[in-house]
Every structure is written in C-alpha cells, then in structure tokens.
C-alpha cells in the first residue's frame, strides 16, 4: 500500500503532518545516513516514568516492561543536555508512562525548551492543572490529552479511572485551550473497535471543548499477544469514523488516522531503517530502538539505560550502532518480526523506498511539526 507521507492538515493556522512522516524534510541527515555516517536521532519518544494512574485495556505499555531503573531528576536533566549536544531536535514526552507523575515534569519541559529541543507531550491530563499548564504550555509545541471515550461512565470503564476524574480532566482541557497561546491542544482517542460507541460522543466532546484537533487512531497489537484487540474490526466502523470527521468545525478538526487504520499493519519494507532517526526511551530509562522491543524478552536489542549511563555515551557506543546495523540488515525483516504497527512505520517505509529510488525529498514547504517523526 502507498502512504501519503506528506499530507498535511491545517490546524489553528498551522500546517501539520498528523498521519504520515516528516523524515523526507530532513535531507541533510538522510543523505549523511546514506553515506554511512552516524546520525543523531531527529526525534525521540520518551517517558520519565512507567507509572500511570489509568489502566486502559489497550495500553501498549502493558507489553513493554523491562528491567530498568527509576529516572531521577538529575538523570533527566543530564539526558536532555546530552540529547541536545548530540543533535536531537524534538521529543514527545509520551512513550510508556504518564510523565506528569514525576515532580520535576514542568522543569523537564522548561529545560528541554531552553536547550532548543522542541517538545510535544501526551498525558491523561489528570495532573495538568492550571498552575502546571501555565508553566509548560509556553514551551510545548503540542499537548495531547489521551481521552479514549466521550461519556463519563464509559470513560471510567475504558480508561480504568474513577468517573470523577472525567470532570477534572475536562476542566484541565478547558484550561489548556484557554491558556494555549502557540501550543496546539489536541485530544487522542485510541479506538478499540469494541468501544466504537464512544467515537461520536468523543468527537462531539472535542468540538465542545474547542481543542484544535482530535485524533481517532487504531490500537497497537504486540507480537506476544499480551493485548487483545481485533485489528480487523475497523472496517465495520469506517462509517462511524467518517461521521466523526464530518463533525469538524473551523476551530476543531476531527482527524481519523486513515493511513494507519487502512493499512492494517501491513509493511511493504523488509529492513528497519527508522530507529536511528526516531528513537525511543522507556520510562525506566531504557534506550531501545523502538517500543515493541522494550520488553525484557527483547534484551538483545536494548542499548543502554540513562539511569546508569550518560545518553551521549550510549549514543556514541559501539553497542548502539551494532543494534542499529542489525535492524537494517537482512537478519531483521519487520514483515516477519514486528507487530502490526510501530511509531517508526511511516519513517521506515519512506527510508526503504528512498534507498530503492522510489521516493525523494519533498519540495513542498515543511510543516510546522517538521522535527516530529511521529
């Protein structure tokens, strides 16, 4: 299947890639990589903890536990300095934990911004009260509220939270919209087909709250079947998702990740080239090529841990480049080894086609979230 990599959506007057990859806009780094040079990640998806107050049944973090440490404030600040030093351009504070649960969360956003790293964040929104928002919003490129329902009781069921938190989070979202300034505020519903009754209530709620956009995305499926999701169930609910999109207004865009949903996890590429450009860190400090390889079972691909090593040393280590080379070799075919989707999927696809001479660098203007590869 062919993806539309650079299809941009206009959100709050900004052009953004919401369902594709921006890798093609990074010509210099891609060409350096092609020459065999050791390039720094453009983007990292990270978490400061694996803790989370919620317990969504589809949460991929359930399949991502590994032996690791507890990231201290000092570990985090060192990590951000190292990341900036090696050349990381952007980070999403999302990964496999609720990063707002660490007491130095706001400081970590401020610190990254002060180092020139663009930051996006995802959160269940419970801890994002107005005082926290006032500190972080001026430094965030985007803030995503993970909110996988539209109605209070179903929210509590699906996300494993007390119903009262529904109201608290809505209050926080309203505050974020009001205080947003340049930050794009969005809501994110991970759609398990069996919970499709919540799609329209979610879209209506997003519109009422006035977030800049709301995403409806697929569930991830892990290779070890820890998660129980019917990935083929999306076809039956396409009509509902289209109806959700039709609820878009000038202020709130409802976006269905059709690229991700339609390809149903099929990968057209046979080598994994994406992790050197889009790297991930678990909330226990583990640096690994991707989230699906976080689990302790996949220790073969675990590169290092920022609770015991400096990130710049991990990045410059032979181990880092050995793992990356292995993933890009004939020994690692993502079609056979990987679950149906991953954060690097579109980036992988573009890079594979680029090496095969099937795509080249786009000539259209770069979107506002160009440093974000997911």
């Amino acid at each position, binding site marked *: 299947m062919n993806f539309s990599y650079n299809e941009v959506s206009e959100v709050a007057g900004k052009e953004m890639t919401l369902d594709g990859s921006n890798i093609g806009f990074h010509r210099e780094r891609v060409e350096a990589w092609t020459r065999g040079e050791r390039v720094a990640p453009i983007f990292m998806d990270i978490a400061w903890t*694996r803790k989370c107050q919620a317990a969504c049944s589809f949460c991929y973090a359930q399949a991502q536990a590994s032996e690791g440490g507890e990231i201290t404030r000092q570990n985090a600040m060192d990590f951000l300095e190292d990341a900036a030093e090696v050349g990381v351009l952007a980070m999403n504070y999302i990964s496999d934990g609720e990063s707002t649960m660490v007491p130095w969360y706001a400081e970590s956003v401020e610190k990254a911004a002060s180092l020139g790293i663009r930051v996006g964040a995802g959160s269940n929104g419970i801890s994002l009260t107005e005082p926290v928002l006032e500190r972080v919003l001026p430094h965030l490129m985007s803030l995503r509220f993970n909110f996988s329902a539209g109605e209070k009781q179903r929210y509590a069921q699906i996300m494993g939270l007390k119903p009262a938190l529904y109201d608290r989070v809505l209050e926080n979202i309203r505050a974020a919209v009001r205080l947003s300034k340049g930050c794009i505020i969005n809501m994110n519903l991970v759609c398990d087909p069996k919970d499709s009754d919540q799609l329209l209530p979610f879209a209506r709620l997003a519109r009422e709250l006035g977030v800049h956009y709301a995403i409806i995305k697929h569930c991830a499926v892990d290779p070890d079947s820890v998660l129980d999701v019917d990935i083929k169930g999306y076809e039956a609910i396409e009509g509902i998702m289209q109806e959700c999109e039709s609820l878009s207004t000038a202020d709130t865009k409802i976006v269905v990740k059709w690229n991700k949903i339609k390809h149903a996890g099929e990968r057209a590429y046979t080598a994994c080239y994406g992790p050197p450009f889009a790297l991930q860190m678990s909330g226990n400090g583990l640096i690994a090529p991707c989230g699906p390889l976080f689990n302790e079972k996949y220790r073969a691909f675990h590169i290092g841990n920022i609770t015991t090593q400096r990130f710049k040393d991990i990045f410059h280590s032979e181990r880092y480049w050995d793992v990356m080379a292995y993933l890009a070799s004939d020994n690692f075919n993502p079609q056979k080894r990987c679950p149906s989707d991953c954060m690097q999927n579109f980036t992988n696809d573009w890079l594979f086609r680029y090496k095969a001479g099937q795509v080249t660098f786009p000539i259209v203007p770069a979107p506002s979230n160009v440093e974000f590869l997911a």
Partner: protein
Amino acid sequence: MAERGLEVLVRFPAGISLDVQGEFLLSAERGLRDHTGLDVRVVKDLMGDDSKLRHKMSFVERAKL
C-alpha cells in the same frame, strides 16, 4: 503480523549484567542465523514483569508501580 520464527530461549542466572546479556543474545542470534540460515530469534526466557498488567490491578496496586 509478526511470525514467531524459531525462538531460542535463554535463561540467565543471577550475576550476569543486563549489558552483557544483551550483547550475548544479539551475538548468539547473529551466529545461529549465519550458521543455519534459519529464521532464528534469540530471546530472553522472561516476559518483562507481566504481573503488572495494569487493567488487572487495583488503584492501590497501580500507585505502587
């Protein structure tokens, strides 16, 4: 979708560092694939902490994660 391939499970006794485990596993996988030509994956005989599946836990248990 992922295929299982030929999984070789490795169980490490206490005292072998995680870094050494990782390097060994990758090296063993590379060697076995080179020698056999088969779709071998060398993995650790341990699913990471699956006792902590969050949706099966109480609020109190989750707070201790």
